[in-house]
């Protein structure tokens, strides 16, 4: 099993969700994040002083998937998130040691799905 963590542009979330659904990945968790990457930030001014903002709003996705689903899931995220512009985001894949469904106590691959 793997845990996929992806940072994407907020406005691509709907598209990513759709393309994950199309790939039969229907379970995921989403968090609000701020990202600092290759994408340049912008400058705010407030009452005459300027402030550099380089933490931009991103969405963080977390998906636990069985190994078979890693490739489809990554591809689906790319499909939904890619615009070709800097700031499109990153995907990280981690080894997932165990997974438990709280309601039933099922573990392992049964817990993921």
């Amino acid at each position: 099993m793997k845990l996929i963590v992806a940072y994407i542009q907020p406005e691509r979330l709907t598209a990513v969700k759709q393309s994950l659904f199309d790939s039969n990945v229907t379970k995921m968790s989403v968090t609000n994040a701020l990202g600092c990457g290759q994408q340049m930030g912008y400058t705010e001014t407030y009452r005459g002083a300027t402030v550099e903002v380089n933490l931009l709003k991103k969405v963080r996705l977390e998906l636990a998937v069985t190994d078979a689903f890693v490739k489809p899931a990554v591809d689906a995220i790319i499909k939904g998130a890619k615009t070709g512009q800097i700031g499109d985001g990153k995907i990280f894949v981690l080894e997932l040691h165990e997974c438990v469904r709280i309601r039933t106590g099922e573990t392992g691959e049964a817990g993921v799905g």
Partner: protein
Amino acid sequence: MNRGKKDRSLTTGARDAAAPDEAARPGRASYEPELSGGHGKRWFWGAALGLLAMAAIAPAAMADEVSLEMFTINNTWMLVATFLVFMMHLGFASLEAGMTRAKNTVNILFKNVFIISIGILTYAIIGFSLMYPGEFNGVLGWAGIWLQPGPDDMTAAYDPGFTYWTDFIFQAMFAATAATIVSGAVAERIKLPAFMLFSLIYISTTYPIVGSWQWGGGWLDEGGFYDFAGSTLVHSAGGWAALAGVIVLGPRIGKYVGNTIRPIEGHNMPLATIGVFLLWLGWFGFNGGSVLSADPEEVSLVFVTTALAAAAGVIGAMFTSWTVQQKPDLTMTLNGSLAGLVGITAGADVISPFWAMIVGFIAGIIVVFSVIGLDKAKLDDPVGAISVHLTCGIWGTLAVAFFGGGDLVWQVIGVLACGATYFISAMVFFLILKATIGIRVSENEEIRGLDIDEHGMESYGGFQIFSSR
């Protein structure tokens, strides 16, 4: 000098004697239509309830020359009405900000602060002179640049109801309203400079010129059109321009995807509710001040009709949205109260309380269908400005004929003539702006929010705002 606001040509016998603005306004053709049919309708409810009642009531007649005391109380009431109308601008600011997304809030607030300011200034520079030019050809007049009080204009000789200064400042608060209405409809996508220029031009030319046709004593007034406090002259002025703006701009990104409507939820319902309550409050001055004196009967009647129409608008919209949407939608209900208020504005002094309630209730129903209908037509109006101010503005103007004794033909003429002028001029202004400086922000800016790109700041610094739209 005989400029001054709102010649009232539609009053019942009951109030004629008492209304100082009527009797004492110099240089006004005193046109009094025979409201036989209207009268019958107007008092129908009373009759139905076995009362002949009010038509016979007449307070002690006021002479042409009112006492200094009466002048002072009239003027004081008009100034109270002035600050109430001023509050409507905070109402609009709050409502519009609440019903749009957090990322565009600074922009909306900024526009509202700008509009009330530029509205007052331009009205001082040219608007008041265009709208109340005194004796004129009935279509276009001009009393000169900047404010020009005459020798007697601070006394009852100017008007038994108010001084020249009061007249100006009360009217100035009205003027800015028209542009504020537009602001909500075009929110979240219009370029700031384009909007600022549009408002500037629209409220300093179209609004006062059309206004002069009726309240300045022009051809509409001469003809027999009746619009007590501005369902057409103020609200539809904003509504038509909003419609033009929405057409030229197109919908916000993500609102209409294929054939489905994807609601873009407002970010702050308490703010929207504050806005509506303040607007309702302000309307007591908007309508109550349009009596142009503190005449006890008339002002109190206007308070009653205004409140009943607003209340009935809420109930009408509530039931309609509950039926149509399954659940009672707060924003629709809020729009309902405004719908009722706009609806009664044209006839608040000539429609009886009972019929005022009916007018408001119907307005509340209409506004819900109008919002849904505009969405179906892919006209994206984030706050419902067109439905409230244009749709219900028309309804209110016509309602004067149905329930207040107005002349249906002239009401229709007024709606069409003003509407065409408002819509065409707004369209022309928007198209010129589009062709020159551009009116729509870039896609990137729209997605990131106008606050950052137009103003370089955020409305809720430090708050986590999560939005994937």
